């Protein structure tokens, strides 16, 4: 038992990390599904989409061979519509609300159809939006993730000159760094960022971290407005003995490495425990398995009813052969020679419902020990509390507090996405970016009027 990289052959890696949701193989195949769409009025799928994509319209446009129009319909609501078609938990959003579910029939594969149109647009580099003439206003955006890019695109369309400050070497945020590689490839993420910024008027300064390379004060001085979309990043710690043993890793770092280094360069244990049951936990567990771990066990302190991931995600993990242990909370990591060798786990039961109606786990006093050589912590991410507080931004446990018009307490500083909501879907961040852009435009024009 040990942690090591390069467990599989190139061919095995390729197979394990191939696209989990393959695209339509032909226009005809897309048409079969597109033609099933009923073209609902005031459609539930639109309402279930955080960005309100006009789903029936874009699907209808596929059936009329107006793929350009279809892609435009999607991007108009969601400039990351291509990426979202691959990473959205559609089973609880658009597809989950498709009226066919009520007939006991499979829903329209909305994501797959969305991918069909948006991929065509990206492949052909269709310029579906035109930037208005520059209005001579400058906006700084912190973070080139979904919120920042979405905000930037709307602003650029309106003729605003946008500069994005991004601490990483690539744009896309968690889309690029925090999602399983079998959902979106690093290359796709790069292409998507290039496609979004091809409208012009958006300058991304990579390797520029707020609080390190630039300060909020500087940005406020240099720009007419600032948008903060720097997301969340710090893995929530377990606060258990043995947490610093070798082999105790953060899921975010683990996933980041898989996407950044190449599959054969990422060390993985033989027996891996993953703590948590959110999307990130699933992505970490399945990818540990796909990197060659022989045994992967997901531990969650509540039950299937409370889990944050969707049933579809859970099924992916189960189909990958991951074990699931419900009502289990890590109590202590036991080491040998400074390396994690076992995990002491406490058996939980569900107690009273909390304010949100979710029943909290309570220890039963019962324990068991499992042999592990790697523990991946995916118990949630924490906001950049220090950065927020240092800049005297109003916040709640590090999450930025904004008003209805996306404004923070700082003059001309707006915010949105994970740094405000604490971590939601990509599609939520895209909508936050749109809202932020609308607020900023209003703010800028109010200044012009004065």
């Amino acid at each position, binding site marked *: 038992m040990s942690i090591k990289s390069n467990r599989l052959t190139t061919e095995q890696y390729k197979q394990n990390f191939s696209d989990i949701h393959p695209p339509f193989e032909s226009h005809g195949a897309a048409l079969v599904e597109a033609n099933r769409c*009923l073209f609902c009025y005031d459609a539930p799928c639109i309402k279930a989409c955080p960005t309100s994509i006009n789903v029936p319209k874009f699907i209808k446009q596929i059936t009329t061979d107006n793929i350009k129009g279809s892609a435009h319909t999607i991007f108009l609501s969601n400039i990351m519509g291509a990426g979202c078609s691959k990473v959205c938990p559609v089973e609880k959003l658009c597809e989950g609300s498709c009226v066919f579910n009520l007939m006991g029939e499979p829903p329209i594969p909305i994501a797959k159809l969305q991918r069909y149109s948006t991929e065509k647009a990206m492949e052909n580099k269709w310029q579906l939006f035109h930037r208005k003439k520059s209005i001579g206003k400058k906006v700084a955006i912190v973070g080139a993730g979904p919120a920042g890019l979405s905000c930037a695109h709307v602003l650029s369309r309106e003729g605003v000159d946008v500069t994005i400050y991004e601490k990483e070497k690539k744009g896309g945020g968690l889309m690029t760094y925090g999602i399983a590689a079998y959902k979106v490839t690093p290359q796709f993420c790069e292409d998507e960022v290039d496609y979004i910024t091809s409208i012009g008027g958006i300058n991304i300064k990579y390797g520029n971290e707020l609080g390190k390379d630039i300060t909020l004060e500087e940005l406020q001085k240099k720009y007419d407005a600032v948008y903060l979309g720097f997301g969340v990043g710090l893995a929530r710690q377990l606060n258990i003995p043995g947490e610093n043993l070798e082999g105790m890793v953060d899921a975010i770092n683990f996933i980041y490495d898989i996407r950044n280094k190449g599959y054969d360069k990422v060390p993985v244990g033989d027996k891996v425990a993953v703590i948590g049951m959110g999307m990130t936990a699933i992505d970490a567990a399945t990818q540990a398995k796909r990197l060659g771990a022989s045994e992967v066990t997901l531990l969650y302190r509540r039950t299937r009813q409370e889990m944050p991931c969707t049933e579809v995600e859970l099924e992916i993990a189960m189909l990958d052969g991951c074990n699931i242990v419900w009502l289990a909370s890590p109590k202590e990591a036991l080491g040998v020679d400074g390396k994690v060798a076992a995990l002491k786990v406490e058996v939980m039961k569900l107690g009273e419902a909390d304010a949100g109606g979710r029943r909290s786990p309570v220890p039963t006093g019962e324990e068991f020990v499992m042999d592990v050589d790697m523990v991946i912590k995916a118990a949630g991410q924490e906001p950049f509390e220090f950065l927020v507080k240092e800049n005297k931004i109003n916040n709640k446990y590090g999450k930025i507090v904004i008003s209805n018009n996306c404004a923070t307490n700082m003059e001309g500083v707006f915010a949105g996405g994970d740094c405000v909501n604490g971590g939601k879907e990509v599609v939520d961040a895209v909508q936050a970016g749109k809202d932020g852009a609308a607020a900023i435009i209003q703010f800028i024009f109010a200044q012009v009027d004065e």
Partner: protein
Amino acid sequence: MRTVDPAYKLSSTQRCLVKDLLNRQTLLVASWIIIEYCIKNCLLLEHSLQKKYIMADISSNFLGIKSPNPFWLASAPPTDKKINVLRAFESGWGGVVWKTLGSQVKNVSSRYSAVDYGGHRVMGFNNIELISDRPLEINLKEIAECVRLFPDRAMIVSLMADNDRKSWQDIIKKVEDTGAHGLELNFGCPHGMTERGMGAAVGQDPEIARMVVEWVMEAATLPVITKLTPNVHSVVPAGRAVVEAGTNALSLINTIQSVTGVDLNTLVPNPYVGGKSVFGGYCGPAVKPIALKFLTTIAQDPLTKKVPVSGIGGISTWKDAVEFMLLGASNVQVCTAAMKHGFRIVEDMCEGMNNWMDEKGFTKLEDFIGKSVANITHWEDLDINFHVIAKIDQDKCIHCGLCYIACEDTSHQSISLEPGNPYNTYTIKEEECVGCNLCKLMCPVTDCITMEEHRVAPGYINWKQWQAQGLPLNDH
């Protein structure tokens, strides 16, 4: 009773093989194939005996021309040569109308085009093919062979001669020598032949049609069916003229002049022939309603209803066939559906019609032929006091909103929308609903929207009576 040589009931491939083997005097093998066929047939017989639930008799007698079922293949490419016709008979078709013989022609390429709808191919179909372009002698020889091989099936030969008595009478003589059971006069082909004064050019002018039928009846000893063109405002004048001239039966409709579409790249309409196109004859499911209307007018006219009618026009299923027969057709002819799916579709046509007849208690075709003719009346005889109101079954509703948007945008704003997330609730405003059926027709769920009867008053009153009594008009 005609006798059937069992060997000829083998499939065409088997038959060729048997013939070949017999020639080579390898009798043993040849016998085995025949034995195998007999075993298979016994199994089939057993199989058919198991289907005891099939009680009704769907055999057809049209002008004394008998066929095991009322399904004939219409005069068209599927019936233009022996190989197709034998395959059709092997598949179970009751009869064929052999593709039109007569005038000398030369065909072009391409010939067909279609209208697709909602992801389905061939809602409508058109063609610019002319009548048979094969040598007459070969056609006649093959017709005779088919009649000999399948004597229990109906063999009708479609004819279109040049417009003179001699041409018509010459070809009738030749065709009658083949042993065919009837003749069909093609007065309907709407493309190509019309430019030479034939086909629809004859059918569109009742007097010319009358003249040609008179020539035909002078020479014909076989029953004569006259096929009418729908490229007229009414088929009744031509129908009457040819009945008066002595035709034994009518068939309708032939194809409708059409342009199926324009290629958006070349800007040339379909079908494409060297950069140009012509109007083609439209057929397929799209024309069924038009055919049924024309059929009904023939079935209701006091003169034309005296002769049997062979119904044609977009028949694809047993249901379509039953509808044609309910509106007065004694049998039906099919083409486009077979061109789309092959001859095998006749199996379900027979079984479906049989099951329906059993359910309805009809034991033979005559029990239901024409039964719906009287149910099409004049508008002014409709009951004004009859009123229906839509009802949405909330348990079945899937909240697609299609009923709402149809009514709200294009009808009577009779559906209310109660917003929900993500599902709205839709209910009928009964006092506003005029009972138009629109919502029910647009609803994708079977029986979710039903039209419930709410008579305005118990008694029958029609438009004339309504008006005579001075009851309110334009009062909605």
